[in-house]
């Protein structure tokens, strides 16, 4: 069959489409011109201004605290959930599965709004704690799905072998099951951390005064065009962090692959 050119062309155009805004953003972070319409000279002044902005650093601190707490809690809750879902398929677990699955499909804004209503209705003070609760809630589902995938490859006769060799259930769990699941749990935790750091919509709804996370702070900066070049600089730094993280994880994977016979 003669190959059509259409798919190749689509790929080319879409890749330009995907990367064009990001490339322009990075270039503009070094551009003296405020709106980046034209190149008016190289500057680092936006970066200097960024480093002098205390609010940015305060927001980053909040983001890291929230991501740390929600990752820890959701990893434990999600892993337990995955184990329960995997071991049994009765009606109770079907409901459990539904509860885990629904947060993955509902739009963020519904979860944000419903949690805001909940916190207001029960009179809960909005702040770092309410944000943590919200983040744990949506992270559980992601962790559970990732760990569940890993559990499907685990051979439970290994556990029985451990019992036959005299291990009690604590030893069998900590020495056999958990080490086998470790890559899945780590992947789930990393995903939870990324989602928590990145989330804007849900956080925006349940944040209180003084509890701005980095995305919430970026959003408030976006509302004023004088901050545009500073956001460019901040975004470029965040991009750099992402690329370094992705690049190193790729390298580690490649090395692991090379070690295998």
């Amino acid at each position, binding site marked *: 069959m003669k190959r059509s050119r259409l798919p190749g062309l689509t790929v080319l155009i879409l890749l330009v489409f995907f990367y064009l805004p990001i490339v322009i953003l990075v270039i503009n972070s070094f551009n003296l011109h405020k709106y980046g319409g034209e190149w008016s000279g190289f500057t680092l002044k936006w970066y200097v201004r960024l480093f002098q902005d205390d609010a940015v650093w305060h927001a980053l601190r909040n983001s890291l605290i929230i991501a740390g707490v929600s990752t820890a809690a959701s990893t434990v809750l999600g892993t337990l959930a995955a184990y329960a879902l995997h071991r049994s398929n009765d009606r109770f677990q079907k409901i459990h599965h539904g509860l885990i699955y629904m*947060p993955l499909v509902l739009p963020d804004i519904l979860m944000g*709004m419903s949690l805001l209503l909940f916190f207001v209705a029960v009179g809960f003070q909005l702040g770092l704690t309410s944000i943590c609760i919200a983040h744990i809630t949506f992270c559980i589902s992601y962790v559970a799905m990732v760990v569940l995938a890993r559990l499907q490859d685990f051979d439970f006769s290994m556990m029985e072998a451990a019992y036959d060799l005299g291990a009690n259930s604590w030893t069998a769990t900590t020495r056999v099951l958990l080490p086998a699941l470790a890559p899945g749990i780590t992947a789930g935790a990393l995903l939870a951390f990324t989602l928590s750091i*990145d989330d804007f919509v849900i956080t925006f709804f349940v944040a209180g005064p003084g509890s701005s996370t980095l995305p919430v702070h970026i959003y408030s900066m976006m509302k004023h065009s004088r901050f545009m070049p500073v956001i460019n600089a901040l975004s470029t730094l965040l991009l750099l962090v992402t690329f370094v993280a992705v690049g190193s994880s790729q390298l580690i994977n490649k090395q692991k692959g090379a070690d295998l016979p």
Partner: protein
Amino acid sequence: MPGQRMKGWMISLPSMAWLTVFFLLPTLMIFIIAFKPANPLGGLGEGWTLRTWLELGNPNYPSIIWRTLRLSFYCTAACILLGIPFSYYIARAPERRQRALLLLVIIPFWTNFLIRVFAWKAVLHPEGALKHMLVAVGIASPDTMLLYNEWAVLLVMVYTYLPFAIMPLYAAIEKFDFALLDAALDLGAGRATAMRRVFLPGIRRGIQTAVLMVLIPALGSYVIPDILGGPSSEMLGNKIAQRAFADRNLPHSAALSALLCLCVMLPMLMGTLLRRKRTGGAA
């Protein structure tokens, strides 16, 4: 074994309890609070009322709901139409290139969503690069507005949700047996017929998943129209946020959220029914 069963319960309890209190209950609350009156302090009043729902008849809302449905539908259609040839190319490429291309699709995803939307604001800005280029080529006049309209919102919605479509489409196409396509061609089908009668039905499940993966978040769009749209391109999500923050009328935003929830549930339900019918027919 009763002990085994007890253990299953105990292990499920933490996540069950957490999600019941912080997910199920709040979601149900959307529907309950929509029937509560607001109090002037921005909280909730005593008693029950239908006033909020009657206020939704206000001529503003039908047009906003219609725009939300229309933009989400266009966005979904565009993502499927662009996603199929894109995923087709990836699935048929040599394995090394497949992995590289998939990574290239995902990388923009790892950058913060807000930043991606913001990057478009700079591209489409009246003083921005694209505008200068278009004016120089003569496509746009100096007072053409690229920003703050429905087109800008739609463009960036496609930009944001396209990878959601590409992933399930790629997974389906990768599993598709291309010998079937060759067989159809050998049996005298034209290329278009073979694509329409063999290829598209073959990746049907992938298309269904892709539609849901794009349509549902698209319906709940809030940031994109907020940053790139104007007052004439607001969507349901913007109204929810406005009622919650600007006017602090929680019952009102609850009623709008309930409406959005129903809009989202409908395609999900249809997807489930379709699947059930198919599997029922096959058995």
